[in-house]
């Protein structure tokens, strides 16, 4: 689960990680009140959406007067912000964060993520703050420091020394501040089951202090149950409504650009089905894993969600029944045709547990538009042909 920058900064503050002061606003009036409350002469107006690249997209702007705060808040609130992470459709800005200005001397980078190969968290840091870290990794990989921390033993002095010497921080007082900063971020990462914490840029002010000027956090969905305070930060409006609706029925759904709707059991086979459609010259319209407990209701729901997409010209149901029983899927297909107007060809391939019973059920139901696929290859080929209007 992702959270907004302003929420990440609340968590930073709770852990004593320095950030500029800021207040969230939903309206231009509120933005002005916030700026007045913060005081000072410079404010930053920052669009709050779950995507990086907000600055380049025009969602982060500097205001040098209260009037300008109002002007910028009015401009940014309600705008559709397009960044390299939002996709071309962009995201609607519903909140702006009003933050006091900071005197930036240096821009650094710091993140904590899981290193899957090392099977432990690593702190990644770089002197190249403010840049896309992927670009830094590609062009100047020597400028990225990686420090693995074994959670069994925790953040040690040498981790801190590797960090500050690696970043070229020589002043003793600054070294101490930086080590303290990183240790707190690591603590926060562990205690909250974070998946990723990224601070870009982490600034050094002209006063010699370190501050999180930006903050991105994502949390392990499987661990949210033990962090109700984090779960409370969920912003539903940032999630795709179809994906969200699907998840309420135990379905895992992701929309794609193509024409062939896919309903599959298991994430691997679902991806493999998309790949097969692509290989046969078709285009998948979605990823949809019906999961291990699929029944008539969830399958019907799956059809409904797939058919919301007007681009869908055929649906390929590909089930290899292990835990999922094929007869249940067959009943789901019949149920779906009763409650949803399935107006495109449906290609069904059912194999595994109770497949013969399922075939019998489908045969007896006598549904128009239903085409049986013998195996994965055959089913995909028939789906591709059906989507092209061939029989």
């Amino acid at each position, binding site marked *: 689960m992702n959270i907004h920058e302003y929420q990440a900064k609340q968590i930073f503050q709770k852990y004593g990680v320095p950030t500029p002061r800021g207040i969230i606003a939903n309206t231009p009036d509120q933005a002005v009140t916030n700026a007045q409350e913060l005081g000072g002469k410079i404010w930053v107006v920052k669009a709050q959406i779950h995507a990086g690249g907000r600055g380049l997209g025009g969602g982060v702007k500097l205001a040098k007067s209260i009037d300008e705060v109002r002007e910028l808040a009015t401009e940014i609130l309600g705008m559709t912000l397009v960044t390299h992470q939002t996709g071309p459709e962009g995201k609607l800005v519903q909140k702006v964060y009003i933050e006091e200005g900071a005197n930036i001397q240096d821009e650094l980078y710091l993140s904590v993520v899981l290193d899957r190969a090392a099977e432990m968290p690593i702190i990644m840091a770089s002197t190249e703050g403010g840049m896309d870290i992927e670009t830094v990794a590609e062009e100047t990989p020597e400028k990225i420091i990686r420090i693995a921390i074994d959670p069994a033993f925790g953040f040690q002095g040498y981790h801190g020394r590797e960090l500050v010497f690696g970043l070229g921080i020589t002043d003793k007082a600054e070294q101490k501040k930086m080590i303290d900063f990183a240790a707190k971020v690591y603590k926060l990462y562990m205690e909250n089951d974070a998946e990723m914490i990224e601070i870009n840029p982490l600034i050094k002010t002209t006063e010699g202090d370190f501050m999180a000027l930006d903050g991105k956090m994502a949390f392990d969905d499987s661990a949210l149950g033990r962090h109700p305070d984090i779960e409370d930060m969920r912003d539903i409006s940032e999630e795709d409504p179809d994906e969200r609706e699907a998840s309420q029925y135990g379905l895992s759904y992701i929309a794609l650009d193509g024409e062939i709707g896919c309903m599959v059991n298991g994430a691997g*086979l679902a991806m493999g089905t998309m790949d097969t459609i692509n290989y046969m010259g078709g285009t998948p319209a979605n990823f949809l894993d019906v999961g291990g407990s699929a029944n008539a209701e969830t399958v019907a729901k799956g059809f409904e969600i797939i058919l919301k997409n007007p681009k869908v010209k055929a649906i390929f149901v590909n089930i290899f029944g292990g835990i999922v029983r094929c007869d249940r899927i067959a009943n789901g297909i019949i149920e779906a045709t009763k409650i949803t107007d399935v107006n495109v060809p449906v290609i069904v391939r059912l194999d595994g547990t109770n497949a013969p019973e399922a075939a019998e059920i489908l045969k007896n139901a006598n549904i128009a538009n239903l085409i049986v696929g013998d195996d994965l290859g055959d089913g995909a080929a028939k789906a591709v042909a059906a989507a092209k209007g061939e029989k």
Partner: protein
Amino acid sequence: MSILVNKDTKVIVQGFTGKEGSFHAEQCMDYGTKIVGGVTPGKGGQVHLNKPVFNTVAEAVKTTGATVSMIFVPPAFVADAVMEAAAAGIELAVIITEGAPVRDMQAAKACAVKNGMMTIGPNCPGVITAEECKIGIMPGMIFKKGNVGLISKSGTLTYEGANQVCKEGFGISTAVGIGGDPIIGLSYIQLLQMFQDDEETEAIVMIGEIGGDLEIQAARYIKENITKPVVAFIAGQTAPAGKRMGHAGAIISGSAGTAKEKMDALEAAGVKVVVSPAEIGKAVKEVMA
């Protein structure tokens, strides 16, 4: 031969009396797996599915001589269960449960490694040695005995792959579903070596997916160490970047972990890479010829 488990393997079930644990334990017993008991704290002394129930794994191991544990406990208790198995001297824990927090698995894996216990999973279908021993949730009937070893991150692709191999007239020695979480137990490299050393296995099918770099590591390892033919499929060539495709670990981060880079690495290592899982059976037939 075969790897990891066979008809003599003694297995206990942690989470034995729960709904999932009961259902699948019974299916495994029907398949022929030697399930010798189970563990449900507080229900020690009872009999379930005609097998003894114990309060602790230590007690179960002492009484039954079990060396493998199949774990079905709820996600929040997985780490505890794995560590208990490790402390009790279990040699292999097969973790079926989906949704265990990553931080928990990190600790559980570290503990298992320290105690010399192998783990498979979590969030996986388990391991099966065809017609001998099934420890997991896969439909047993599709695994005919034969000479092809199978390693897969995905459950249903394990079934799909095994089914095709058998339809081509071959069979499976052992199939291992390693799971698609960010932290997993046994992975490609260890299993590839086991299959390499196994006399019964003549070819290996390896099924991977987007996210992480285990397949890239495997490609390097194959080039140096594996002489048996390997067929591979990597799921997610059409997956968009930045989206988690069902499995917790199946995500392309930035430009890393794509299907293409994994397929290229495997191909460069001499592996027969197929672009669709529908081609797995045919490819096995080719490499076995």
